[in-house]
């Protein structure tokens, strides 16, 4: 059992992640344990090989294309709502007005008061949620929905974790 503990400390020792007491205890153990010394050597070599692997850098167009995507999907909601209402022009609009639906809508708005400005407080939160759920309905974002669902199903909380209070 003790041997297992020391074995599991080898990489933490190499990574300088042992506390002072653990480090001293491990080094004392190392002096009398050939097996741990051999593993330490092997794992040190492994760490060197892994650390020497090349790291991918973003392509030249990554930043620009990302910012364009963010603007499109996050910061220009009016563009997508414009597309959604794009059919409501010309003859269709005339037909709608003619059918009396528009009159009814206008009547309700006049009766209840025309909405002004952006919603605040709880209304704002609800509006934001609605915006979020509206996005989920877009087929292109199904993967995102699935990923978030998977995280939630697996109990992985998206909320930032609570800070750990150090005992020592």
């Amino acid at each position: 059992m003790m041997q297992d503990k020391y074995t599991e400390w080898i990489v933490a020792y190499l990574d300088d992640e042992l506390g002072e007491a653990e480090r001293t205890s491990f080094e004392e153990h190392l002096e009398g344990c050939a097996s741990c010394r051999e593993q330490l050597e092997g794992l040190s070599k492994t760490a060197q090989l892994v650390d020497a692997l090349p790291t991918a850098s973003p392509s030249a167009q990554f930043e620009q294309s990302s910012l364009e995507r963010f603007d499109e999907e996050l910061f220009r909601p009016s563009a997508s709502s414009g597309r959604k209402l794009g059919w409501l022009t010309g003859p269709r609009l005339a037909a709608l007005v003619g059918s009396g639906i528009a009159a009814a809508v206008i009547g309700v708005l006049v009766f209840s008061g025309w909405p002004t400005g952006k919603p605040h407080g709880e209304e704002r939160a609800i509006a934001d949620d609605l915006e979020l759920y509206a996005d989920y309905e877009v087929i292109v974002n199904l993967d995102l929905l699935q990923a978030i669902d998977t995280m939630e199903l697996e109990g992985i909380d998206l909320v930032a974790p609570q800070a750990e209070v150090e005992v020592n």
Partner: protein
Amino acid sequence: MVGSKRNLGIGDPDARLMLAVKAGDREAFVKLFESYAPRLVGYVDRYLQNRAVSEEIVQEVFLKLYRTRKRYTVQSRFSTWLYRIATNTALNAVRRRQHQKNREPFDEAMVGTDTAGQSADRIVDGRRLEKLIYRTIDALPPNQRAAFNLTRFAGCTYLETADVLGLSESAIKSLVFRAADTLRQAIDVDERRGASRSNTLRLVKR
């Protein structure tokens, strides 16, 4: 991710930027993206080994970051929050790809980027070793893989890794050891096979 032993977000300038993002500030969002996206591509690429796919995943990470901004609280460093989303998104992408069984070819552009002055045999050996390391990391259980990648490639301390994965530090010690030991064994076996191959070739050439 360089951080102190204390993981409280108070005093973390990126946490303050994230609070601005929470209020819908595009400029703050862009600053965080510019600051973290390049290294995040490198980190995510450890899971997917394909730069184009990794770039797309990093975009998804920032889309999620913005869409879930209301749930951010300054109780930990911003990077902890970001790497948690990135790790989950990368692992999900790996799972999806394995499920679809349409794995893309290994990104050769990533391999052997500094080969000047090396003999052909050494380059081939180096590439084989890189592929072996990536294959072995690919085959690790998700929690070992995430702990190993976060500590090795994202520069996280064990405490930060524990925060990202919602585990204890001692669990991280164990996970990182098991991942590294699996790699050590795979490299050992490969070296023994390599020595055996060399001996066979020598015998054939005689």
